[in-house]
């Protein structure tokens, strides 16, 4: 029997008012694989990520994480599932009234109550060192550059050693070199932790480097799913255009 999928969408529908955002979307991501979701702006990519961590609920359909349906799960069960999910938000979403160290300590204090303050400090230092920000532990988020904020957000997402890492637009607002550094970090995370990655991006070059599979969304529908090479041969023109590097 094959391993259970790390993430599985089954006939997911989601609308905001009259606007249909996801329309009968089904796919799965195997454990340890990286999926990049491509699509034009406003096609439901970020909504897909938020459904995976239970920040949004679908109108119908099933969202399973490690075979557990999180749509109908209790708050306690959802909390347990979230313990193994890291989320790098598009804007990094660092808490702007906390230092970088406190930003990383918060998930540990909230979701891993077994750790002592010394262990939390060690875990924070390790996570920051991994992304090259170990000298910035006392800085406020406002003192960090865009690339540093992304790396700090990634460190926070990784501090609990998640099995599933959700990444929203890792390269947005960054120059190509910094974006490439973030991609390198994501590849390292995948290799070192064996984590499953789901990345929403507009950066085709980055997607082709990091992804095992690429999903293409358009107007709420999944119009392509496969490897980059497979999608280049798609009958769908939008899919071909989106996965082809300019």
């Amino acid at each position, binding site marked *: 029997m094959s391993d259970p999928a790390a993430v599985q969408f089954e006939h997911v529908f989601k609308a905001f008012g009259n606007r249909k955002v996801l329309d009968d979307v089904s796919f799965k991501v195997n454990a340890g694989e990286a999926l990049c979701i491509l699509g034009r702006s406003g096609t439901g990519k970020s909504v897909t990520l938020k459904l995976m*961590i239970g920040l949004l609920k679908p109108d119908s359909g099933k969202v399973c994480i490690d075979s557990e349906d999180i749509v109908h799960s209790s708050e306690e069960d959802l*909390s347990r599932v979230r313990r193994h999910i890291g*989320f790098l*938000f598009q804007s990094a979403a660092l*808490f*702007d009234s906390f230092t970088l160290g406190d930003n990383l300590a*918060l998930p540990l204090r909230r*979701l891993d109550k077994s750790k002592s303050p010394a262990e939390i400090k060690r875990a924070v230092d390790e996570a920051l060192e991994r992304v090259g920000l170990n000298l910035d532990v006392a800085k406020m988020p406002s003192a960090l550059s865009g690339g540093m904020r992304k790396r700090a957000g990634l460190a926070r997402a990784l501090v609990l050693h998640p099995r599933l890492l959700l990444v929203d637009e890792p390269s947005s607002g960054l120059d190509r070199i910094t974006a490439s550094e973030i991609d390198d970090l994501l590849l390292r995370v995948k290799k070192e932790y064996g984590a499953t990655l789901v990345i929403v991006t507009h950066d085709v070059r980055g997607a082709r480097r990091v992804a095992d599979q690429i999903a293409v969304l358009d107007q709420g529908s999944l119009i392509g799913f496969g490897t980059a090479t497979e999608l280049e041969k798609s009958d769908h023109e939008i899919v071909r255009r989106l996965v082809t590097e300019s």
Partner: protein
Amino acid sequence: MEVMKKFFSFLGEVSHFGLKGLVDAFRPPFEWEFFLIQIEEIGWQSLPLILAAGLALGIVLSMHTRGTLVQFGAEAMIPTLQSASFFNELGPLVTGLLVAGRVGAGIGAGIANMRVTEQIDAIESLSVDAFKMLVVTRIVACILILPMLTLFMDFASLAGGFLSEYLVSHISLQLYLDRAFKTVEWANFIPPTLKTSVFGFIIGTVSGFFGYTTDEGSEGVQRAATNSVVLSSLLIILADVILVKGIFFLFPRNAL
């Protein structure tokens, strides 16, 4: 008709938001760390403004009343009038309005900014109740802090009144305080001071609501700040009318 329907629907949403805040305040886990941060931000950081405003208002009121009372040979009533005005009405109301301006805008813009920059989503992704962490702590802090700030406003105004009187008539502090507190009773001091907890609830709820429910980017942050101050101030004034009536009903001697 449609406007009225929208208005009452909005009022219902805000009331539900505030009541949920009150109920959640008694539901564990308690966010002590964030609550203490709010006490510091709302209370301690508002103190200089409250003290300065109280002192200035005390001086001004004393200057205004002196001119009139002297004509009737009643300048001895200045301290009494000063304490009665501030303890009963000016202290609580001005404190409420000042805090609505300083703190209401801060809460509205602060929470709205966290919404826009996905910080609230980040908190919820950690399975932490963002409403309790961000809104409930602010509502409770406002409820507890307003009466204390009102006391500071009251006594700063008395200090201002004494300063003004001392410069004109060289009245002693002992005599000034004797006259100021001659007619003050607990019944006309405690209820008006405690009514500011309602003002605090209004400020925390209204500004928390505008901040928490915004979804319009940076423009939404600006709108949340403005709406928080305007609606909080308006509701404080309306609530004051109702509360004064209630206090007069419960403590009839206050109305005399």
